[in-house]
């Protein structure tokens, strides 16, 4: 018995020893908080933002976005593609950088791009999302004289093709297909809409087996890319470690600047799902960079004494907005006056203050106020005005029954009551507060609103089926593309137009915006679009986030921006120790 007690105390003692001397971390590593595991680093899948960030360290696209300048810049390509139009086709001619090389020293050539496109279209590979997204690329024409030059043949024409056509990681042919067997299968065979049977192409079936056996989801090191880092450790659900390559091809370039700049010797992504825990970790110095800090914690840190000493704080106006959508196909919300009335029940300034501590900004519509040329500043911002809401409701034919609810007669001779529910992702504090505020304000003027927080998987099917009255969700915009057909065109009902909105005028306008290439005329159309959206009110933008980031004081050059992930991990430089 006594021996047991001794053994136990020893056990506890061993446990306490390291508590006295916390482990020193390697000083050349930048440690970043991630909210969850990226789950898969397969370059064909890219399931989420985190995976996208990690894959950007391992592989390179033809083009990329310079987040701080908010423009598309060439990455593996020498410059943006040359555009030609031929009947209904768009031809985009790229040339790869002369210096670009794989890890084994072989140059990156047009055949690698063709190989990548075949991977993105082959059956049996987890490429369905990529295939759908890049379905406009029909063929690739290689230049017989220049191994680095090629032309992408795209169906139809749209201004977005210029950058969309270069937005996927280029993969090395030599690793997965050393015998170059895929070269025998033309790309057009794979891009055709009908499903290609693997049994018809034994070479392809063989290749698919090899690709799946490489287990790229968890071991991207089996397919070394042209990026500056390699994955050296991945403890699932805990941490990912990326180590800088010692001889990366871009090190040979005379001038090194983003996106061809990679400073940290090592990048550790620490996965901490819980915000409070992440905050503790930052204050203890277990992590260096905490992106997307919740607002109240950001403010508390910013004003706390040790926060001021040890940390530096950044904010950036983002393109990510919180919006409410109305189900325009259902009875109480199928007229625009009722929807407009509800708009006046959101107390947007108070919500910005309460949920974001003022670190967000309002917008009149889907166009971001940062885009001065396109933003329609003649429209007034929405105000919190329950009286005006009541006026609008009575204009819409509703009548209040004493101190009770609102009703109106329908065409069939029945009466209809104004009772709503609001659906949003469960567990999100911002949505919860918005929903509570709306419910309180609506209850004041006699509209009962039920809250329906829903699990995210269930939420999507409910939204798609139109099984809701009002929804809350976030949507990220960007300064490059203005195709609103997925969320507001009547052709996207049952797919991604959850509000089920669509009038002939709006449909025509949305398509005209997509086709328009002249910037001035496009701006005019977009301003008109914002006016129509305000009158019809299928969705209302509540506010746009301001990204918040807290980082260790000794780190500089984070290139903080309003585009995800909100900073540039490859350019971070530690200040010299003083």
């Amino acid at each position, binding site marked *: 018995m006594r021996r047991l007690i001794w053994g136990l105390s020893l056990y506890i003692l061993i*446990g306490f020893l390291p*508590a006295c001397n916390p482990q020193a971390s390697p000083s050349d590593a930048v440690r970043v908080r991630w909210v969850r595991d990226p789950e898969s680093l397969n370059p064909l899948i890219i399931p989420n933002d985190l995976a996208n960030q990690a894959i950007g360290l391992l592989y390179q696209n033809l083009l990329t976005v310079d987040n701080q300048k908010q423009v598309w810049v060439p990455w593996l390509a020498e410059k943006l593609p040359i555009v030609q139009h031929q009947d209904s086709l768009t031809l985009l001619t790229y040339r790869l950088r002369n210096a670009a090389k794989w890890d084994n020293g072989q140059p990156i050539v047009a055949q690698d791009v063709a190989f990548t496109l075949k991977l993105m279209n082959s059956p049996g590979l987890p490429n369905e999302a990529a295939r*759908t997204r890049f379905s406009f690329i029909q063929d690739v024409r290689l230049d017989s004289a220049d191994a680095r030059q090629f032309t992408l043949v795209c169906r139809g024409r749209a201004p977005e093709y210029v950058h969309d056509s270069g937005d996927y990681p280029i993969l090395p042919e030599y690793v997965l297909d050393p015998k170059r067997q895929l070269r025998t299968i033309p790309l057009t065979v794979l891009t055709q809409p009908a*499903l290609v049977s693997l049994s018809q192409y034994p070479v392809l079936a063989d290749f698919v087996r090899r690709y799946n056996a490489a287990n790229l989801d968890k071991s991207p090191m089996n397919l070394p890319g042209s990026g500056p880092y390699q994955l050296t450790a991945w403890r699932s659900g805990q941490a990912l470690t990326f180590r800088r390559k010692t001889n990366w091809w871009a090190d040979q370039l005379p001038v090194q600047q983003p996106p061809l700049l990679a400073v940290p010797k090592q990048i550790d992504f620490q996965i901490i799902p819980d915000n409070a*825990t992440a905050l503790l970790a930052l204050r203890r110095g277990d992590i260096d960079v905490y992106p997307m800090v919740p607002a109240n914690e950001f403010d508390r840190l910013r004003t706390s004494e040790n926060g001021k000493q040890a940390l530096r704080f950044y904010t950036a106006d983002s393109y990510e907005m919180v919006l409410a959508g109305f189900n325009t196909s259902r009875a109480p919300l199928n007229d625009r006056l009722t929807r407009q009335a509800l708009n006046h029940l959101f107390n947007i300034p108070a919500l910005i203050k309460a949920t974001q501590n003022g670190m967000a900004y309002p917008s009149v519509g889907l166009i971001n106020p940062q885009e001065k040329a396109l933003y329609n500043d003649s429209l007034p911002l929405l105000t919190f005005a329950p009286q005006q809401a009541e006026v609008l409701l009575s204009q819409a034919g509703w009548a209040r029954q004493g101190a009770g609810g609102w009703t109106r007669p329908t065409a069939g001779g029945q009466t209809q009551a104004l009772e709503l529910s609001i659906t949003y992702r469960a567990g999100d504090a911002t949505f919860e507060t918005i929903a509570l505020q709306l419910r309180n304000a609506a209850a004041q003027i006699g509209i009962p609103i039920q809250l329906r927080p829903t699990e995210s998987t269930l939420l999507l099917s409910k939204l798609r089926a139109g099984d809701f009255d009002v929804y809350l969700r976030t949507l990220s915009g960007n300064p490059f*593309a203005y195709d609103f057909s997925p969320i507001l065109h009547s052709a996207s009902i049952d*797919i991604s137009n959850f509000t089920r909105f669509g009038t002939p005028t709006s449909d025509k306008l949305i398509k005209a915006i997509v086709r328009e290439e002249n910037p001035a005329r496009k701006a005019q159309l977009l301003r008109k679009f914002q006016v129509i959206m305000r009158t019809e009110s299928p969705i209302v933008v509540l506010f746009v986030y301001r990204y918040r980031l807290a980082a260790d004081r000794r780190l500089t050059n984070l290139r903080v921006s309003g585009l995800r992930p909100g900073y540039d991990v490859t350019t971070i430089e530690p200040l010299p120790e003083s």
Partner: protein
Amino acid sequence: MGRFLLYRLLRTIPATWAIVSIVFLLSRTLPTDDLLGQALIDKSVGSRSITAAEREATLLRVQQRLGLAGPVFYFSRIHSTAGTVWQWNGTDNQYHRWLSNAVKGDLGQSYRSGQPVTAVLGEALWFTLPLTTSAALLATLLSVILALWLVCGGPAFLLSILYGIDALPLFVVALGLMLLLANPDIIPLFPAYGMGQQTTENTPWNVQISSYLYYSALPLASLILVKLPSLVVQLHDALRHELGANYANTARAKGLSAYQVATRHALRNAMLPIIVLLTDLLPALVAGAVVVEVIFALPGMGRLLADAAAAHDFPVLVGGVLLVAMMRLLGLVVADMLYFLTDPRIRLQA
């Protein structure tokens, strides 16, 4: 004995099979279209739109790749204009394929990460087992020590404290410990999350163990604190009961001290119900501790299953259920064996 155990084992196999088959079939009847199509809904404004036909074609490709195409079971009912007809599907169905693969040890792939389910479960188990096992062992050890102390004149307020802890659910205990002992504002003694940074290769074993203990101190402590009270109370009662028995009086009359009577004679008898209780622990060890794993951000089995349930990652969920069910039935067999060994009078309906 051998025949008895064999019989019990043989009887548990159909039960396991039934449980897992039910869960599998239930999971396959739920719609997964939206789960699989999630990647197609772009959350950013301004990207290209897809048509309904494109969406259908893409979903079909995903289903084919994941083996979700075709009938679910050996027979199915077909609705047609002529009414409903039962149809025999033969062995070319999802259940048959899954079962024959499962027998070979292949439980399919996770919808979310594309990893084999066995690998995902293995990874989580590799983490969960040390945590839950050491929690169970330490809790038992501590409870023996505390119960002995109480019997030999330890302070009675200890029991009150234990009652107090027992009144709190696990999540309150864990939350309290974390905000108390890992908070820079109060006592920053322990790390608040995860399992540490250093790589596991080429570090000496004692550093590995101590770092493991350092990082798992709080989760371990909360698990132990929650299990401890009931164990101590039970053992304490049993010990008191045993010490009142005749043989204990005889031992005391021999001149043994209270401590000696308790450790040499009474403890053995008092431990018997506890040992049997511990067999119930087997599935709990494997299932992990959801609450602790969520609060301390530990990548264990409980969180894996909870996440899989929330995200409808059914292959992982079914695999986890299979594992836990097997452990449970194994635990039952072990319990029977212990009963059999401790008290041969018990002849179960073999």
